[in-house]
């Protein structure tokens, strides 16, 4: 089971990243679980300084941008 976390304080882009990440995970047929992290301290604790950001199994993969679904597939593999 892959744990996909989306970090962001509720900006429009965070929602888009969430949708893109979920679409990518589905397309890959992954066994996954999504989590939204909007608590600022938790975001900072993960070492993230620009939202939206994405972590897979606790490892931060990107911050401050929303890649395409195709690019996200690469990150989630």
């Amino acid at each position, binding site marked *: 089971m892959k744990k996909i976390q989306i*970090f*962001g*304080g509720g*900006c429009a882009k965070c929602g888009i990243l969430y949708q893109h990440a979920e679409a990518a995970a589905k397309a890959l047929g992954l066994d996954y679980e999504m989590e939204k992290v909007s608590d*600022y*301290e938790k*975001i*900072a*604790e*993960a*070492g*993230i*300084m*620009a*939202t939206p950001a994405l972590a897979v199994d606790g490892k*931060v*993969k*990107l*911050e*401050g*941008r*929303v*890649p*395409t679904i195709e*690019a996200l597939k690469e990150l989630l593999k």
Partner: protein
Amino acid sequence: MFKPVQMFADWLTYGVFGLGRETLAGGAVNFFVFDTIKIFILLAGIIYAVSIMRTFLPPSRVREIILKKSRFAGHLWAAALGIVTPFCTCSAIPLFLGFIQTGIPLGVTFSFLVASPMINEVALIMLFGMFGWKIALLYAASGYAIAVIAGLIIGRLRLEHLLEGFDQTKRVQNAVLGADMPWAERRDYAKDYTLDILKKVWPYVLIGIGVGAWIHGYVPQDLLARYAGADKWYAVPLATLVGIPLYSNAAGIIPLVSALTEKGVALGTTLAFMMAVTGLSLPEFMILRRVMKAKLLFIFFGIVGAGIMFTGFLFNFIMR
């Protein structure tokens, strides 16, 4: 470089629209067409280039660079890196905590927080396009100086006790994201970012240049010198105050201000106004309230505001 654009503007204004070269309408329309095209070419080209560069400098990389510097160099670096890092109010808190909790001093963090919104690429491109490179450079240099000095003062005042809303004793590790992004992704990011910005600013740019063109063509020369010339002491503080609520609208305001400067508003006043628009942003202050007491915000506001006014007075005095 913009000769073909001028030829196109001439052709459209005098040829297609049939306006007379010496008429006010002809001047205003020509000015509008030329400036709009020029500004959009500059915005698209420069934002794209800056975004590509940014993919090599994510915030965690910026933090790592600052962490390695001594305190004074830290201020210089923080302000410089603030220029190339885009500032988004929604990222202000993670950014702030990310600096403080990895052990970057409060003053150094403020140097970054002042420079990042004040010296942004949209403002610089607009200044370059409407006023020329000298004014754009003057603006960037003054903004940089204000960021470094405001951070140094806040650091000296030892205001760490005015932070609140988070665990200050906690230290987090600096996790640097790999910069191993494929080029296709860098280009995608830059394209998206450029389009995002253009989508956001285009109506303001059009309105700003439109009203600017009208002022350029119809308002008599030196009309404003009487009210906002270099000899009017109140012009600078007034311009700073008026600029505060106009945050993040540099794209629409710079063409307007350029037209006003032409009609007699002194240069220092113009610079102060621009800096207040970009550097004193109410949403930013409101969101920062979550991690600091109001008193610290007021001190921050006061120091940056004073720096902006000082810059305004200084240039009005020098250029008089």
